């Protein structure tokens, strides 16, 4: 958690942490150049002479944003869809879940690529596209949880009081379903970041001069032998961040259930 906060803070403060702008080359240095402390190129420079440290931090911004927003999108769609399907049950639930099954079986990459091709490489599009794919599993999880919560007596009690169906979903079912959902969220974020990195690796991700870790890693991989630092630093950041999220996910799962002690 602490490490993650550090990374987030760094990402936010990126511009003020280094004298170098992220999109202009340092003409006075190698293209690319290894880390050089005196010149304050802590991570070195890339093939276009831009400071890697700054770019890594900017990349952090993008990657984290993608992760969080895409996951939030999937959360919203998934929770509503899953809770409704689970709550209504019966044939409606069946139909809704079959739709999920069908969408699930379609090749995701294909879609994203299609979307990219049709609508251009807009960063918001990436958010939406990734979110739109991730919600499927979220919906399944939420539906499963809803089904088990629905049977509990306090839901029956709510019916007996006369609480309306929407209020039941909102006040009774969703709060009790959130546990696994939040855990899953913290696991989805790294997944989304990875996917975005993969897309960038393929060249389908963020556009220049914006960068993300995926882009950086992609570029770094190409120059792995001659300028290893281009790959190493972004990769380390990515790995650490993913690890942090997974760790938090585990911790949250343990902490969120007060009565499971």
């Amino acid at each position, binding site marked *: 958690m602490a490490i993650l906060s550090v990374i987030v803070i760094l990402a936010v403060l990126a511009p003020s942490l280094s004298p170098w702008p992220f999109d202009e080359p340092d003409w006075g240095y190698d293209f690319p150049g290894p880390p050089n402390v005196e010149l304050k190129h802590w991570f070195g420079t890339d093939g276009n002479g831009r400071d890697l440290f700054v770019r890594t931090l900017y990349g952090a911004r993008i990657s984290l944003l993608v992760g969080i927003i895409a996951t939030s999108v999937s959360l919203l769609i998934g929770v509503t869809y899953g809770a409704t399907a689970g709550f209504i049950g019966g044939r409606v639930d069946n139909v809704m879940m079959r739709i999920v099954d069908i969408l699930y079986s379609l090749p995701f990459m294909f879609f994203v690529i299609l979307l990219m091709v049709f609508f251009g490489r807009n960063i918001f599009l990436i958010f939406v596209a990734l979110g739109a794919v991730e919600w499927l599993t979220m919906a399944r999880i939420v539906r499963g949880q809803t089904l088990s919560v629905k049977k509990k007596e*306090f839901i029956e*009690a709510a*019916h007996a009081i006369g609480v*309306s169906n929407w209020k039941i979903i909102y006040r009774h079912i969703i*709060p009790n379903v959130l546990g696994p959902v939040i855990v899953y969220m913290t696991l989805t974020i790294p997944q989304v970041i990875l996917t975005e990195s993969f897309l960038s690796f393929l060249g389908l991700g963020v556009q220049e001069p914006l960068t993300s870790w995926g882009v950086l890693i992609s570029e770094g991989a190409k120059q792995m032998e001659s300028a290893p630092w281009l790959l190493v630093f972004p990769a380390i950041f990515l790995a650490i961040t993913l690890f942090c999220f997974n760790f938090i996910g585990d911790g949250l799962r343990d902490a969120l259930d007060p009565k499971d002690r």
Partner: protein
Amino acid sequence: MNRENGANDNRPILSVRGLKVYFPIVGSGLFSKMIPLKAVDGIDFDLYPGETLGVVGESGCGKSTLGRGILQLLEPTEGTVLWLGEHIEGLSAKEMIGYRKQLQIIFQDPLASLNPRMTIGDIIAEPLTVHYPELSPEDRKQKVREMMERVGLLPLMINRYPHEFSGGQCQRIGVARAMILEPKLIICDEPVSALDVSIQAQIINLIKDLQDSFGLSLVFISHDLSIVRHISHRIMVLYLGNTMEIADRDTLYSTPRHPYTRALISAVPIPDPKLEKKKQRLVLEGDLPSPLSPPSGCVFRTRCPLAQDVCSRQKPVLKEIGAGQQVACHFWDWQE
């Protein structure tokens, strides 16, 4: 414990006629029909103001389903439920909202009936937010505190969560929630079965006390005949979804007429070694038949010591045999 509270009003507040609740269960095989599980198969009774009707029976008798069928938490397959002269059977959730103020329920599992993510203050207040939304949060809180005190909970615990309380206290929370709208009828579905013996008496006293103060009518569902004897005015004995016998409390225990009632009463262990060891127990042979294929005619005949041919051909009708006692048996007057 007599019916003097209701002496002024001779009309029943609740009238149930021919109530049936069937659950459709798909039979085995690809093209089989739906076989109905006959949880409740034709029940009639009346309930008077201020009265407690005990509903007893063993597993599969349909007593819990009956409770929910009355409250329309489960939709009756057939039959009528008259509340204060109005038909409420088959009403939708929306149509039932007005009645929810008057008809409430207390559940068997104290902890499971409370939303673990809500404070008990919110849990008890929820009925108020649904039915009296015009109340200010302050007024609501005040009412909740008063009700908490009334049921024996410390008002300062209002912001605690259910898992911080013991079983007995959780049941008090359930009672508070059921009482806060000052209903006229409460269905008590095995309210003390999940509690320790030393706590059961506390909750039973509480329910009785509330009944006396508020003039409540209760349908008290339980498998425990000793508790039911203590709290009921009249008692209905169920078996496999059918009524076997209804009688005033004292009559039922002193002169039970139905063979099932007799077997049930004799099976209850008495905490008195001399009596218990000498007791002549009427042991029922066999197993409970499946509610998917109940026996023809009288459903009890497969285990009944008095069963004859007529019992398999003709289902006995609930007949009044005098002094508020009704029995459904062809041989109720058979003397030992």
